[in-house]
C-alpha cells in the first residue's frame, strides 16, 4: 500500500484470519498497523495486492459498497469515539440506527449487548460520567450491536490502567467465544503474553512473525522508536 505522498506503508503482508479466530496484531509506531486497519475497513484502497474482508474485495469495492462492508465489521478505537451528548443506550442504539435497523430490533438488541458488556445499570448515563474502562465497553457494545463477523480493536486498552485492560481483554475473549472473530491491534506486551493467542508482528510494513499460542518472533529494535 503506497500513499499519495509516496509513503509505502504496508508491503509483503500476506495473512489469513479465519472465522472465529482471536488475533493480536502487534508492532511499533509507524510499523503499518494503522494502515492495515484502514485497508481492512475500506478507508484506503490497496495500490497492489488483494485484500478480502468478509467476502468483500477491498481493491475492487465501489465507494457505495463500503457502508455494507462496514456493517459486517465492528471497530473499536483507543479514544472510544462516543457521542458525549447521547446516553450509553443512545450511543449503542446509534450504531443500529445508522444501518437502518427498526426501533423494535433496537429495543430488543441494545439491552442484550449492554448486558453482555456489563453496562445495563449505566444505560441512561452519558459517556463523560463513566470511567475509561466503562467508556471503552460502551464502544465495544456499539461495535457488537450489529452482530458483526469481525471486530477490529485499534489499541483498545491504550487509555486504560492494567486492571481495566485485563478486564477488557477478558470481555473480548468472551465475545470471541460467542463466535465473533477478534483482531486486536496493540503494543502492550504484557497483555499479549497473558492471553495465549495468535500473534502477528508487523514491522516497517512487513509481517515478520505469525505464530499461535502466544508465541511471536521478537527482534531487538534497531531504532529507539521501536517499543514493542
Amino acid at each position, binding site marked *: 500500500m503506497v500513499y499519495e505522498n509516496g509513503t509505502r506503508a504496508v508491503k509483503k503482508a500476506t495473512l489469513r484470519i479465519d472465522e472465529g479466530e482471536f488475533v493480536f496484531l502487534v508492532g511499533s509506531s509507524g510499523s503499518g498497523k494503522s494502515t492495515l486497519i484502514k485497508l481492512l475497513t475500506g478507508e484506503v484502497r490497496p495500490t497492489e495486492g488483494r485484500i478480502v474482508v468478509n467476502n468483500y474485495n477491498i481493491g475492487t469495492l465501489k465507494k*457505495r*459498497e463500503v*457502508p455494507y462492508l462496514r*456493517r459486517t465489521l465492528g471497530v473499536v478505537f483507543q479514544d472510544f*469515539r462516543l457521542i458525549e451528548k447521547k446516553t450509553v443506550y443512545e450511543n449503542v442504539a*446509534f450504531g443500529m440506527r445508522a444501518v*437502518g435497523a427498526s426501533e423494535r*430490533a433496537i429495543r430488543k438488541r441494545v439491552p442484550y449487548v449492554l448486558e453482555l458488556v456489563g453496562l445495563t445499570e449505566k444505560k441512561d448515563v452519558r459517556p463523560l460520567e463513566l470511567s475509561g474502562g466503562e467508556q471503552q465497553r460502551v464502544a465495544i457494545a456499539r461495535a457488537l450491536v*450489529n452482530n458483526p463477523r469481525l471486530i477490529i480493536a485499534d489499541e483498545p486498552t491504550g487509555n486504560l490502567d492494567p486492571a481495566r485492560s485485563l478486564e477488557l481483554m477478558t470481555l473480548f475473549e468472551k465475545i470471541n467465544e460467542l463466535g465473533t472473530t477478534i483482531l486486536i491491534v496493540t503494543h502492550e506486551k504484557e497483555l499479549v503474553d497473558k492471553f495465549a493467542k495468535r500473534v502477528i508482528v508487523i514491522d516497517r510494513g512487513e509481517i515478520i512473525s505469525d505464530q499461535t499460542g502466544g508465541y511471536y518472533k521478537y527482534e531487538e529494535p534497531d531504532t529507539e522508536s521501536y517499543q514493542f
Partner: protein
Amino acid sequence: MKNRTRNHTSFSYYWKEGLKNIFLHGFMSFAAISIILACLLITGSVALISYNIDLKIVDLQKQSEIVVFLDDNLTLDEARGVEGKLLAISNVATAEFRSADEALTDFRDSLGKNADILEGFDSANNPLANEYHITLKDVTRTAETVEAIDKLPEVARHRVNEDTISMLVKVQRVFQIVSGALVIALGLISIFIISNTVKLAMFTRRDEIAIQKMVGATNWFIRWPFVIEGTVLGLFAGALAFFAQWGVYSKLAGVVGGVLPSFDFVPFASIRLLVLGVFLIAGVVVGVGGSVLTIRRFMDV
C-alpha cells in the same frame, strides 16, 4: 455472501433527527438563522430599493410622451381615424387624441387670469392643431418610432424631448448595472458567510459523522437529517427575514416619502408574496445547499 441489512429507516426518523439536531446544537442553529436572516435582509433591502428606483425611472420614461400634430386640413373624423395608424406602429403603447378645440380650452384654462390674451380665438380660427399624445413601449427606440410616425401623411410635425429620454435611458442602464452588481456582490458575500457558518456547525459534528460512517451508515442516511435541518432553519430564517424586511421597507418608505414626497414606494402589500416566496426559497437553498455541500468534506472517511 454480501450481507445488506434491510433498511427500516423511515422519513420520520430523519425528521426527528433533523429537528432534534436543531435544538441539540442550539447555538449553531441560532448563528445559522441569524446569518441567513441578516444576509437576506441586507440583500433584499438593496434589491427592493433598486426595484423602486427602477420603477420610478420607468415611470418618468413613460411620462416622456411624444406629441404629434396633425395636418390642419384634416377634418375631425379624419384626425380621429389616425389613431389606428399610430397604434399600428409596433412601439406605440398609447395614442391619446386631443382635438384642436380641446387644446385651445386646455390652453385657456392653463393661462388662468391671463386667458384674455386668447380672446377672439374660437373653433373657426383656432391656431392650434389636432394632436395625439403618444407613449412608447420602449423609450430606447424613440428615434425609429418618431421616424415611422413622421412617415404618416396626416402628421404635420412632432415634439419630443429626446435629450430627457436619452438621459433617463442612460440613468436606468447605469442604475441597473450598479444595483445588479451590488445585489450579486451581497449575494456572494452572503453565500461565503453562510457557508463558513455551516462549515463551523459541521466541524462540531465531524466526530458524529465519522462514527456513522464507521458503523456502516450510507451517505444519504447521514445527509438526510442535515437536509431537513437546513430546510427548517432556512425556512425559519426566510420567514423571519420576511417580517423584518416588511418592517424595514415600511420604515424606509416613510422616511423617503417624508424627504421626497414625489417618490412613493410601491406598497409592500403588493409585493409581499413575491418577497416571501423569494426569501423562503433563498433560505431553503442556502440552508440545504450549504449543509449538503459542506458535509461532503466530512464524509470521506
